[in-house]
């Protein structure tokens, strides 16, 4: 079974105002960083023992900011290499941000097998960066880009549009500097106000304007046009790449490839039978450290796919790296098919007629096509450029139709 491997490093220097990912704003002491690396190794060994890591297509070390671990960033990557059997062309990505990018550590990472860095640039406008609560500046981002490209690894960067106060000019400048930096991969996200973030508070207290959806849409389109004109291809709703630079780890998420998540709040997706085997293991049923172990009940017979999320608490992970997940979702065959169709539509290649009909979503796609959100080309369904901007409409409709088959789309 080919799988992807994800490691979640729940530390960052400063929590960004808009971020609702699981992370704690601390720079770990070397001892803590080493302990974290040990815990990752324990997690990997557990899955390796179950035979799940025999064919790993990609590794992604994300967060948080993995490079807050400093020189200890190297050990979890190293330990994964030793526990997993990687495909020869495996992609190994480490996320980083401009302030924690150290050229020497970057080189060490490449030496232990890292093939790709993903840098959180977000913007080349310091005013926008301050609004986002980022602690780096445009110039430190450029320096980090140089350092990373200098290692010879592939580099991807994230950009955010639709930020309050961000002008069209500022955005155009950011996109141009991203293109000319020499990276092969650029992801473009609109800013979203997530519940519970400082940013959401500022918006609700009217300290800052909420993001303007129309302007964000315009920026997404202008960025797309600029990137395509510069030789990038949009291969996914938010991602643009030069030929051969497509991110293969994320592509795995959209194509139904199983994945293992190690670390606090990391998600895994497994075929039901593999999960069934994991339940049997001692580490999942042994209470171990008081209060954090529990026994899972068996997998429901109709379940085909399991998605689970590790406990979010970092201390739990550090004390007992291997244990049962906090949340488990059992997906039936019908749900798995609907999910595959929904996620497949995030890719520009879209999904085949076969996938659509397996998922029972051909009718809803026809309906969405009449609204100009998707199109049928050859034997495939693809999202249109209008559909990209209204992705939620498409994904939500496809998921709903796929999981409510036989109810008739129009009555929903």
């Amino acid at each position, binding site marked *: 079974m080919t799988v992807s491997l994800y490691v979640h490093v729940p530390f960052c220097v400063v929590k960004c105002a808009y971020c609702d990912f699981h992370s704690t704003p601390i720079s770990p002491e070397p001892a803590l960083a080493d302990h974290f690396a040990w815990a990752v190794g324990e997690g990997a060994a557990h899955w390796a023992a179950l035979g799940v890591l025999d064919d790993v297509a990609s590794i992604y070390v994300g967060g948080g900011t993995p490079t807050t671990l400093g020189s200890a960033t190297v050990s979890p990557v190293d330990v994964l290499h030793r526990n997993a059997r990687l495909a020869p062309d495996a992609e190994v990505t480490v996320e980083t941000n401009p302030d924690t990018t150290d050229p020497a550590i970057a080189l060490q990472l490449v030496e232990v097998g890292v093939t790709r860095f993903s840098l959180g640039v977000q913007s080349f406008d310091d005013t926008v960066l301050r609004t986002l609560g980022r602690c780096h500046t445009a110039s430190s981002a450029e320096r980090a880009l140089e350092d990373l490209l200098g290692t010879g690894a592939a580099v991807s960067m994230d950009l955010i549009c639709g930020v309050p106060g961000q002008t069209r000019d500022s955005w155009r400048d950011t996109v141009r500097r991203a293109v000319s930096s020499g990276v092969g991969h650029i992801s473009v996200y*609109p800013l979203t106000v997530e519940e519970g973030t400082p940013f959401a508070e500022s918006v609700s207290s009217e300290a800052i304007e909420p993001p303007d959806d*129309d302007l964000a849409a315009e920026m997404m389109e202008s960025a797309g046009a600029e990137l395509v004109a510069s030789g990038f291809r949009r291969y996914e709703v938010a991602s643009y790449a030069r030929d051969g630079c497509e991110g293969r780890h994320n592509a795995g998420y959209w194509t139904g490839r199983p994945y293992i998540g190690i670390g606090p709040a990391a998600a895994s997706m497994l075929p039901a039978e593999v999960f069934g085997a994991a339940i049997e293991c001692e580490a999942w049923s042994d209470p171990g450290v008081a209060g954090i172990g529990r026994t899972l009940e068996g997998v429901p017979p109709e379940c085909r796919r399991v998605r689970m*999320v590790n406990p979010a608490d970092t201390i739990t992970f550090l004390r007992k790296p291997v244990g049962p997940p906090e949340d488990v979702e059992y997906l039936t065959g019908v749900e798995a098919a609907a*999910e595959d169709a929904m996620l497949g539509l995030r890719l520009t290649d879209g999904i085949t007629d076969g996938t659509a009909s397996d998922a029972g979503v051909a009718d809803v796609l026809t309906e969405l096509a009449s609204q100009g959100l998707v199109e049928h080309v050859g034997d495939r369904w693809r999202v249109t450029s209008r559909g990209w901007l209204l992705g939620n409409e498409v994904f*939500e409709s496809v998921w709903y139709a796929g999981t409510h088959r036989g109810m008739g789309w129009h009555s929903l």
Partner: protein
Amino acid sequence: MESRKEGGQEQRQRDTGSRPIHAHRGPCYTFADMSQATHIRNFSIIAHIDHGKSTLADRVLELTHTVADRDMVEQVLDSMDIERERGITIKAQAVRVLYTAEDGQTYQLNLIDTPGHVDFTYEVSRSLQACEGVLLVVDAAQGVEAQTVANAMMAMNAGLEIIPLINKIDLPAADPERVRHEIEEGLAIPADDAVLASGKTGEGVSAALESVIRRVPPPEGDPDAPLKALIFDSYFDTYRGVVALVRIIDGTVAKGDKIRMMATNVVTDVEEVGVRRPANLPVDALEFGEVGYLITGLKDPALVKVGDTVTLARGGAIEPLPGYREVKPMVFTGLFPIDGDQYPDLRDALDRLKLNDPALIYEPESSHALGFGFRVGFLGLLHMEVIKERLEREFDLDLLATAPSVEYHVFTTAAEQIIVHSPQDMPEPGMIERVEEPYLRATVLVPPDYVGAVMELSENRRATFKDMQYLSATTVEMHYDIPLSELIMDFFDQLKSRTRGYASLDYEYIGYRASKLVKLDILLAGKAVDALSFIVHRDKAYQRGRVLTEKLRGIIPRQMFEVPIQAAIGGKILARETVRAKRKDVLAKCYGGDITRKRKLLEKQKKGKKRMKNVGNVEVPQDAFMAILKVDE
């Protein structure tokens, strides 16, 4: 009382295994001692809302050991959940308590708790007909308010003894002297010997009961005359059918009697008579002057009407008691299930509620926009809110209510008269000769500083100023004639906010008057949405149309296409706004493959949409249908 009955009651409690929570404790009284009219006092507690009426009633039950302390739930008499939560009394209640006075004698006190809201004025008036006196409760800090005046007037008109009681004297802001002055000046009721009390601490409660015994006259009546009993309330018991609460004016009623309801002319047998303590306790008979309940086995609440007179089927009274009238709903709204499949459930739920609330009326209504539902008539806005809440809570229905309307009398050019409860039923403008609408006489009590604010609001609402007078240096009483349709449009909230909460309001129905009224249609994406149309005065149509379209633009979310919102009379467009098409709706980065979480966000979004009503192709949130009500001016 006959012991067999008492035993029967206890037996039943043992059978059901429940604690006899309402059985009285202490010495075993026999009601016969106190059933002599000289030892009966029938009284009510009346007050402006929130002046502490129900808490006082609770203290009376405690003091007389009618309900054991440990079984005392706050405000026992307000037994419905919603009544308790909102701190209001909706249905009248009656309870008999026994009180040994300072003179050493034990009296039978019948405490008739009345609804405190103006929607239920008729019920209050019937309850007062069952009494000889009232405790007029006035908050020691708030002083005399509009319903204090209205209730006191009702008690005076009924010729009752009025005992002023200044309540909440434990409050730091209490000013009993000022309030005493307001009662004397404003209501012309002597307040020298007003009872000073606190429902919270219990202080003054026995003084109040002593006052009742000393000042409220015992009931008068003729024990030998044909039976005349006033029904002042009724409720539905699943096992027993309709239970009527009655005051015996003349004669006696006993189990087995054949009786007749004089208004509905229904003849039936008396299955049981009894008294409420507050649980039903059967007795052999109820004699003149007494208050109790009557079970007939009638299952149809429409046959047992509040205000009707009960007499014997043979040799009964010739003339009924005065004052009976049919309770007529004043406010109408369309109730539609959000999920069309719930229509039969809504019908069943309304049928069930009507058993306990004969004032509730409804008929099927269909709307192009909202599908099948009911046009429901209510006594007033509070009644409407309470019923809607009960339907949603007790029957688990998801309902959409259209903006309330009133009953219009439309006179057509063809010399016909049409009753219109719903804007949909309004004839074309060309067919209308004139339209009449219900008017109220509103009484507003307010500190002098806010007279200007009240005048401004009232002018905005087509109200005609009648007169005003100073009740005291701090309170002015103003009278207006105002269309009911204006009053139900957020009037009370506006009044409160413009007077910083100081104004109080009461009103009574005064009749129909002609007005220049037109139907204003609201069009979404070019199609008139029947459930959004409303009736408005011609001079206000343009302004309301503009305000409402603007409001709707804020309420209707952006859709996949542009949605024009228009206000129109006949074919003439008065105002237009546009909800631009939605351009962007994407989720942010999906991290670490936590697709479950993102998908749940999508599902939540979908659920939000399902709670909206799909009108044509436009998703309309529920708020839109109530927006008409909240036209800030």
